[in-house]
């Protein structure tokens, strides 16, 4: 028997996952299952939707209603599910390329609507499935197979992007900070509106190797040493924060949720007749 958690929430006959050794995605996926468990959700009423890429293979291993869609479109499919049946708890698992490049438009509009979808972006800073091309979150100067001389694009801060676009809950943790990640996903699930949790993953196979970041363990050590909790960061100087990145909760400001607002229209029209 696998652990009680894994036995309860995973399609164990499909394990182990297709991911490379040391890929952070499995850790993140476990954290999500743990958050669902702590939230006490009914598996039959949870739908997990993904797009295309390494991260998007996660739902196939998870024992819920699961939908593996087209590249970048997970949030658009998820919007249809949520609006058609608001009783379903809709979770989107997506990657940095899937969510912010090809699916960038869907992301900002899902944020803007504040529709009740919990999105977890597995950010490994690279297109892994296609072999290591640079993504919108590959840091400037880093290499990918399509940035052989270093990436000249500026990268997105996914949480700031989502917050600015109207998401009512945004947060970030890493695969190393898996317990924090579970807590943040749990909080995200508790928000009725649109939530986004960026889960910093690690891709030792492509991003790590291309950029001499070391093996899986060294990449996890990097997460441990360079992540600063947003609460602690407020007491630090700019120099102290140089080269660091923030984790924790950035925004938690509930606002009326989209499908509830739509329901009000239906109810109003029903009364008028």
């Amino acid at each position, binding site marked *: *028997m*696998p*652990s*009680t*958690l*894994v*036995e*309860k929430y*995973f399609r164990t006959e499909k*394990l*182990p*996952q297709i*991911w*490379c*050794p*040391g*890929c*952070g*995605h*499995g*850790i993140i996926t*476990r954290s999500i299952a*743990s958050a669902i*468990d702590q939230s006490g959700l009914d598996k039959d009423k949870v739908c997990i939707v993904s797009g295309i890429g390494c991260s998007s293979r996660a739902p196939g291993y998870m024992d819920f209603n699961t939908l593996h869609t087209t590249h970048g479109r997970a949030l658009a499919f998820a919007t249809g599910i949520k609006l058609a049946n608001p009783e379903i708890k809709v979770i989107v698992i997506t990657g940095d390329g899937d969510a912010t490049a090809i699916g960038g438009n869907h992301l900002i509009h899902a944020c803007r609507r504040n529709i009740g979808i919990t999105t977890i972006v597995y950010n490994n800073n690279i297109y892994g499935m296609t072999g290591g091309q640079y993504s919108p979150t590959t840091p400037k100067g880093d290499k990918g197979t399509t940035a052989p001389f270093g990436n000249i694009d500026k990268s997105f801060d996914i949480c700031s992007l989502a917050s600015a676009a109207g998401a009512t809950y945004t947060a970030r943790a890493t*695969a*190393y900070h*898996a*317990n924090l990640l579970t807590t943040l996903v749990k909080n995200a699930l508790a928000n009725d509106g649109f939530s986004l949790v960026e889960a910093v993953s690690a891709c*030792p196979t492509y991003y790590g190797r291309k950029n001499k970041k070391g*093996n*899986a*363990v060294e990449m*996890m*050590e990097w997460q441990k040493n360079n992540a600063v909790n947003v609460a602690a960061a407020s007491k630090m100087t700019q120099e102290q924060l140089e080269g660091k990145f923030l984790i924790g909760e950035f925004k938690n400001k509930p606002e009326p949720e989209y499908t509830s607002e739509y329901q009000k229209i239906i109810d109003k029209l029903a009364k008028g007749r």
Partner: protein
Amino acid sequence: MEIKDVRAGEVSYEKLIINPSWCKGCGICVAFCPKKVLSIENEKIVVNDIEKCIQCGMCELRCPDFAIYVGGKNNEKRA
């Protein structure tokens, strides 16, 4: 030290259970085990000294492949 086969490929030390068939040998559990209980041999996880294990669950938390977890009451608690 008692070892028994639980299910195909699984090895139980009661307080710690490993599944080498799911292990991809990344070494994350080894690196973050505070008591140095674990190591990798032939690209698979092995338990060196189960007596040192304090069931902190750091291995289970960060194993990307769910190939190791703490047993007994702590297993139930984590679900």
